[in-house]
Structure formats: structure tokens, C-alpha cells
């Protein structure tokens, strides 16, 4: 077990290296850079002349070494990564580690909430739907599942914010807290304010998560329910419910366990559209933002983090598989 873990962690290092290299190259292959953004801001916000804006962009490239060969920029960043501060964000003008320290914890909290809720509700609904196949409950649950998968998240979020801002006039929009509460120490009032701000994101995310988990669970459970050993168990006098829960469900959980390897990443990427629309400063929003303006080191760092999450997720998922099913031996 420990040996296996050590092996997986060691194997992750070259994967991460290759990944950062590819990512870095990809991020830099778009035509514009942060200097173009600087020029754009000068023109649009400060209505500077084109010549002044272009000169400022050129100066920025010189100051920040954006004209250097890519590989040099890469190793410069790698050095920063190894020292733990990941370089400086052009946009925030502070170490990326600080930006991360600020944005990562609430984002993870959000993502994990969404994930746990989505999985628990989704799996439960999937079990109910499969156990009552073809009943009206099954139909209803399946329909909600369709909706959750089909409706584009951006549209769902837009409808929500349209109703909240244009129709209802809700006062908890944008950011994690209202201005007043962001100055208060943690309390129930503050927590409530937080919930009022983030529930739409959780709702959209959970609905999506429910749909996926529900459909997966339903399909897999129906498979196992048809397997002979279930019938055998029934023949032995176990009640239907007990059979489902004791025999079928554990076997139907495998693909869901495998899915855990990808889930964190999908969750982080999945909240982007909603968070952007609701103006919540999460990690996902930082990815889109940094990419849009060419704050490349931030993008690269966040991609590195996502990759890391991915790999850890993979390991966790394999461990989960082994735990669910002792017949799976690790590291064969």
C-alpha cells in the first residue's frame, strides 16, 4: 500500500513536468500578451493615444522579459515555482502565492460543497430511480437529470441572475460577502451572508452534479440488479431493499469511484461560467481572467494546480476502488 503510494507520487513528477512544459507552450502560443492588455487599458480607460499605448506595451515587454525565448521564461517561472511563490502576477502586482492563498480556500470550500451535495443527492436519487425503474418517480428523476445535463450552465446562471437582479432585487450579489460583512469577524451573520452570496453557484453546480451522478448510478445499478447473484440473494430471502443496498449498490459504485479522479478538476472548471456571471472571485474565474489578459504566470500556476489536483484525484480514486473492492489489488 505505502509502496504503491510512493510509486504513484514518484510517477507523478515526470507527468507534472511534461504537463507544465506543454501548458506553458500552449498558453504562450496565443498571439497577444499582457503588454497588449496594458496598451488596451491605456487606450480604452485612459484614452491614451495609439502611439503612447504601443510605446507603453513595448516598455512592459522589456521590463518583464516578455521578449525572451520561451524556454528561458519557462525556467524563470520554474525557479519561482520551486521557491514557492510562483512568480508575480502582472495584473494583481503581487506574488501569485498570495493570490492563491486568498482565492484557493474559498474556491475549494465551494467546490467540495457542490461535489459532496451533488454526489450524495445524485447517488441517492440514482438508487431510488433504479429500484423503482419505470415508475413515475423514475420518470421524474430522469427528467430532472435531462434538464441538468442539457441546460447550458451559462444560461442557467444567466436566468438565475436575471431573476435575482432584475426581478427580485436581491442585495447579495457579487463577491463572497457584502462590503459590510467582509469587515466583520466570522459569525453566524457572516456565514449567512456568505450563503446568500454563493447559493446560486452551489445550486447550478449541484444540479449538474446530481444529473451526472444520478444517471451513472441508475445505469450501473440496473446492471448489477440484473446480475445473477442479486437474484440469488433474493432467493435466499433477503428483502428487495436490503438486496439493493447490501449487494447491488457497492458493486455499482465502481465507475463513480473512477470518476473521482476527474471530478475535482471538473468541479473547478465547472463553476467558472456561473462564478463569472455572479462575480464570485474563485480560482476558476482567475483562470479565465488571467487567460483573457495574458497574465501568463497566473494561468500556468493555476493549470499546474489543476494538474496536481487531477493526479491526486487519480490516486485517491484508485485507493477508493481498492477499498470498495478488495479483489482489486494495487500496483500489480
Amino acid at each position, binding site marked *: 500500500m505505502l509502496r504503491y503510494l510512493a510509486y504513484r507520487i514518484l510517477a507523478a513528477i515526470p507527468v507534472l513536468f511534461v504537463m507544465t512544459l506543454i501548458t506553458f507552450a500552449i498558453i504562450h502560443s*496565443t*498571439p*497577444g*500578451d*499582457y503588454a*497588449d*492588455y496594458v*496598451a*488596451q*487599458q*491605456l*487606450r480604452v*480607460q*485612459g*484614452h*491614451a*493615444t*495609439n*502611439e*503612447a*499605448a*504601443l*510605446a*507603453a*506595451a513595448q*516598455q512592459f515587454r522589456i*521590463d518583464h522579459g516578455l521578449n525572451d525565448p520561451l524556454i528561458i521564461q519557462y525556467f524563470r517561472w520554474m525557479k519561482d515555482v520551486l521557491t514557492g511563490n510562483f512568480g508575480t502576477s502582472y495584473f*494583481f*502586482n*503581487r506574488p501569485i502565492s*498570495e*493570490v492563491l492563498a*486568498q*482565492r484557493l480556500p474559498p474556491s475549494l470550500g465551494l467546490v467540495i460543497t457542490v461535489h459532496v451535495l451533488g454526489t450524495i443527492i445524485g447517488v441517492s436519487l440514482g438508487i431510488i430511480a433504479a429500484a423503482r425503474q419505470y415508475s413515475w418517480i423514475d420518470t421524474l428523476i430522469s427528467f430532472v437529470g435531462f434538464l441538468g445535463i442539457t441546460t447550458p450552465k451559462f444560461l442557467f446562471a444567466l436566468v438565475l*441572475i436575471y431573476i*435575482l*437582479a*432584475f426581478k427580485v*432585487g*436581491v*442585495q*447579495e*450579489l*457579487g*463577491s463572497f460577502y*457584502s*462590503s*459590510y460583512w*467582509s*469587515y466583520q469577524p466570522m459569525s453566524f451573520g457572516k456565514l449567512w451572508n456568505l450563503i446568500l452570496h454563493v447559493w446560486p453557484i452551489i445550486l447550478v453546480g449541484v444540479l449538474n452534479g446530481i444529473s451526472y451522478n444520478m444517471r451513472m448510478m441508475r445505469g450501473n445499478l440496473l446492471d448489477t440488479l440484473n446480475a445473477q447473484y442479486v437474484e440469488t440473494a433474493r432467493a435466499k430471502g433477503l428483502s428487495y431493499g436490503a438486496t439493493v443496498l447490501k449487494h447491488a449498490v457497492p458493486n455499482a459504485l465502481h465507475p463513480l469511484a473512477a470518476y473521482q479522479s476527474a471530478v475535482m478538476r471538473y468541479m473547478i472548471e465547472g463553476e467558472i461560467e456561473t462564478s*463569472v*456571471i*455572479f*462575480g464570485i*472571485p474563485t480560482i476558476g*474565474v482567475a483562470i479565465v*481572467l488571467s487567460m*483573457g*489578459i*495574458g497574465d501568463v504566470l497566473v494561468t500556468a500556476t493555476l493549470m499546474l494546480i489543476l494538474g496536481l489536483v487531477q493526479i491526486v484525484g487519480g490516486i485517491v480514486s484508485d485507493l477508493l476502488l481498492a477499498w470498495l473492492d478488495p479483489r482489486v489489488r494495487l500496483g500489480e
Partner: protein
Amino acid sequence: MKTITGLMAAMLALGVSASTALADGATAAQLPDPPKFDAQGKVTFVGVGDILTYAALPAYNEPEFVKALEKAGKLPALKDRLPKEPMVYKTGNMKDGIGVYGDVMRHVIGGRPEGWNYWAGQSQGWGGIDIGLSECLTRTGPLFQVKAEELQPLPNLAKGWDWSADGHQLTMHLIEGAKWSDGEPFSADDVMFYWEKNVLDTNVHPLNGANPGTFGEGTTLEKVDANTVKWTFKNAFPTQVLYAMAYGTFCPGPAHILAPQHPANSKNTYDQFKNAFPPSYMDMPTMGAWVVVDHKPDNIVVLRRNPYYWKVDEKGNQLPYLNEMQYRLSTWADRDVQAVAGTGDFSNLEQAENYVESLKKSADPAAPARLEFGQRTIGYALEFNYSANGWGDTDDRSVAVHNLNRDLHFRKAVTSMLDRQRLGESLVKGPFTAIYPGGIYPGTSFYDKASTVYYPYSVDAAKAELAAAGLKDSDGDGVVNFPKDVNGGKNVEITVLGNADYQSDKSLVEGVIAMGEKAGLKVIPKLLSGKDHDAARDAGKFDWQVLRQGSEVITAVQDTGHLAPIGPNTTYFHQAGTDGKVDVMDFEQKLVDTVNKFIGAKDAKDRIELMKEYQKIATENVYTAGLTVYPGALIINKRFANVAPGAPIFMYNWAEDNIIRERVFVPADKQSKNELFPDTLPGKPGSAPGEGLLK
């Protein structure tokens, strides 16, 4: 047959008259008047003297809590904090009259403060933070309400100026006895420090790019006495330069704070100088109405009133009326939503797609915000890449298209194929958008309809002009081909660059493509977002581009150089090639000459005539093919008073400057409890966030 009847039915329904005869080519026609739009605020045009003056008043007043601090001995007396003759805003120009103290204006912005050293190039996150912190020699934002005959920048830190008889010298009189927000006196030394150590020192790059050339090549500035400076120019009467002395390029910083950090006076490198006032450095002295007292990264910036502010109302109340300014650090799109919902107070709504719903919402008496429409100063044009000199793409197809762009027949074909009514309606229906043939905007004081040449929508005329340009559909696939000897006689394929970040830009690009298809041109979208769009544009990697235009066509007096290729890269669509020269066409040369004459013209009448001439040449030759113009909407919370009607969201400057925030107030019965640091004043420069407050 079916399609034609369908089209005609649509035209009748829209009230658009179909072009009568089958034209041989594009012929100019009467430009329809822009539709009447009742929601547009009526601007009351006034003279400069009606807005403000400089005078000593018999008595001055300040908020109660400031009085209390004064009594406690924590602050000098108000009389000593104000200049000898403060700037006085005239009550007659204030829509709701003299205001009362209190409350806060909550902004939402998408930028983040890089630091407070504006003068070395750091951005404060835009959205009006820097506009509020910057008091400049002159001021342009409120000019939207100044009569055309009196149009020139408002006095500000420079309370007046005299030209020498030969027009080479300009003496500026600075406000006397004014103080920075930390109580240090403001003087000509601050102006000279900015000029010598920021503008002239080529190692320092102020934000918005002020450099010696900004004020004319060879211009010098000298100090006469503590309150007077003198400019010397190479050309006589370069009146245009007064606009460059407003926001953006001549807002001096506090020399007593900046100078010790400058490499000339310290061991700092230029980079250390730039970063000497990081985002966590609070209470940076300013001449502005509010001082930054708190900054929570990625969350909020809070500004409190400047107790040394040097502007008052006619009753002697020290401005600003609002005690606090807040800036939520979010995204630009979030700003619109929050302003509509009422969690933010202010937004510049530029996306016409959201007008209808915002209007619906604001009509509700309980709605927190209202919409203020200004002149039609937001507009788009289709711009042609004229460079046949190696700027931009140089493959056969691109070069062939660029050469087509240089052919007047081709440009006439393009302008005729555009159904501008439909393009405008694709953004928003109703009387918002107006037909815009090109040139300067109808909302500009220099605009002259009679000088505007308009080629109306006619697919037949477009086809005839294409044929005249030598383009025929030789292979019968519905797309015209190049002549045999050009680009292998292939189909004419044109790339059109657009900004993918905005729905309006995308809709217009889509419209141009559909209209090109009808005329026989294959137009291919090149939609890029943000920086990639700008990179492609600055590198000339496009054949056409749909672009939202800037100050030059809105005011004609700002960024005037953008109106014609007077320099190697002054316009966004015709720049110098590998040889460093712009291959200007004959009519472009005329434009260049006119623009240069305009910049050098002293007499207002001459300038008006010159701009008419410019408009005629530009629209006759389809310098750009205009698409549509429409008004922006200022979303502002209903509780604010003294917001001038018809204030445009962008004209001479952004709305944050235009509405003169220091004299905006909230009537006592409407005041909110949103102040985060009530009853406090800014503290000592360099305090930690939220900690230096005077209370």
C-alpha cells in the same frame, strides 16, 4: 420571386423606403435624421463661467464630524485648509442645487490597483479611481455641457492662463494656497517635478503615456514663481495642447512624497521608484476629493473625504458632499448587474443588448437605479486595412484584398451593401441606434450634416461598384472572383476582425458577413478576445475590422491625430510598413493636411470649417464605412442628486469625471447606511490599510 417579396414586405413593415432605381453605382443621398429618442437627457449648454469660478467666500462650512475633529485639535481650521480662493461651483449649474453632506457612492470595477504611483505608470484599477485621485491642470469631462463657441478645457489646478502675443508662450496661474490631502502645500514645484522627473525623464513612463511629445515637440516648461508656470511652444497657439493638460497626461503628483523616492534623489532604481507605493500603502496624498484609506486585495478599495479639498459650493460648503467612495473589486460585467440590482451605485452601460431590460427594471418605482441616456457617442465603423506596404499579413490573398481596399469603387460597394438600419436593430430595436455613414459622430459639436456624404443601402449599387472594381463572379458560385491575374482569380475572401468579448461587436460582424454574402463577397469572421484582438489589430493582421471608435470621432479635439495617418502608427488601420513609411493615398493626404491644419488652428471658426472639410473628404471617399451610433446609458442609483441630465458615459472623458462627483449628493431623507468608515478622515501617508484613520 419569393425572396424579393419577402424583403419588400419587411422593408415596408420597417418603414424603410427601398432604393428606387436600379443604380449604376453608388450615388450619395440625403442622410436620414436620427430617430427622436425621448429618454435622452436634455443637456443645458452653458459657458465655462456658468459652471465654476475661483473666489474667496465670507464663510466656509464642513460636515459635523469634521468640525468635531477640528475642535479636538486633530485638524487645522477649515479656513487654513482651504486655498486663498477656492474653486466655487455655481449653484445655477447644479441641477438640484446646494447639497448636504453624507453617504457613499459604491462603484464596482474589474481592475485591480497595481500601486499608487500613477506617475511612474501604475494603474489604480481604473473605473474612476484614478480619475478621482487625479486633479489636473485642466479638466475635460464636464465639457459635454459647454457651448461650442466657448469650447475649451475647464480650468482646474490652473485657474487661468494667458497666451503671449506671438502665441509661443502660455503662462499658467495655479491655484494659490491649496494643500495636498496630508496638509502639505501644493505649488509650482509639484508641477515642475512632474514635468522634469516624470515626463522628461525617459526612464519614467507615466500611466496614459505622457511624454515630451504629448505637448508638442520641443515644448519647454519653467517655473515663474510658486504659483505660476510658463510653457514655451515651437508652434504658435497650439490650443489643442490644453486638452493634453487634462486627465490622463498632466495630473501632477505630490512631489514631497515622490521626489525622495525618485532615483535622482535616492539610491532607488527606476523599478523601485515605480513600486515605492504598493497597493498596501494607504493615504497616498492627493489633490482629489477622496483619499484611499483601505484596500483589501481582490475585494474592496475604500476612499474617505479629503479634508483639504480645495473646491466649495456657493454657500461655502467644502466639497465633496459624499463622505466616502467604495470600489468593489469584481468584474466589469458584474458592474452593470450590481448597479441594476442596487448593490452598486454606478455603471456605464455600453452594451445596447441590455437596454430594454434595464429600462423595464428602472421603470418600477421600487427599482434602485435609473438610466440616464446621453448623446449618441458610442459607434462602430468598418475599417479597411489600407496598407500595401508590408504592415500586417503579406500573403497573396491579403495583399490583393488590401489593394482592393484602396479602390474607391470597392469601398463604395462595401458601404452600399450595408443595411445600417438592420445592423443597428440587431443590437437593440427602437430609436436608440442611428444610421452612421462614417466620419465624426453626429453628437460631436463639430458635426455638420451637410458635409456628410451618405451612400444608402442598395445591393444593386454594391454589385455595380464591385463590377466597376473589376470583380466578377466568373465561376458562378455566388462569390465574386479576383481578375485572372490577381491572386489566381480566386474567390474574393475577406477577413473581418472583431472583438469576441462583446455581443455587439459579434452581432455587427455577423451582420457584415450576411450582407457581404448578398452582395457576392465572402467575408470570414476573425473573432478574437481581449489581448489577442488587440495584438492582431496592432499588427495589422486583418483585411477589415469592426471597431468601436474612440475620442477622435466623438470630440474631434482629443486624440485628433487618430483621424488620419499623420504619423507612422496613429490610426488603427493604416500604419507604416517595413520601410517605416505609411503609403498614404491622395485623399488620405488631404485628410492628413486637414487634420494638421486643424491641430494648429487657433480660431474656433477655422476649426469648424476644417472639420467640415475633413468630414466631406472622409465620407465621400468612404475612409471608413460607418455602421451604427447609439447613446450609452449611465446607470445611477436613484438616491443621487446633481447628476447633470444627458451626461454621456463617454465623451471627453468617462462619466465618472463628467458628472462632477464632488458635487453629487444624497438628500438627507434618502441617505443610506453604507459608509464603512463613518466619521473618519484619512490619516498619515503610508499607513497600513484601514489603520491610519483619523477619528
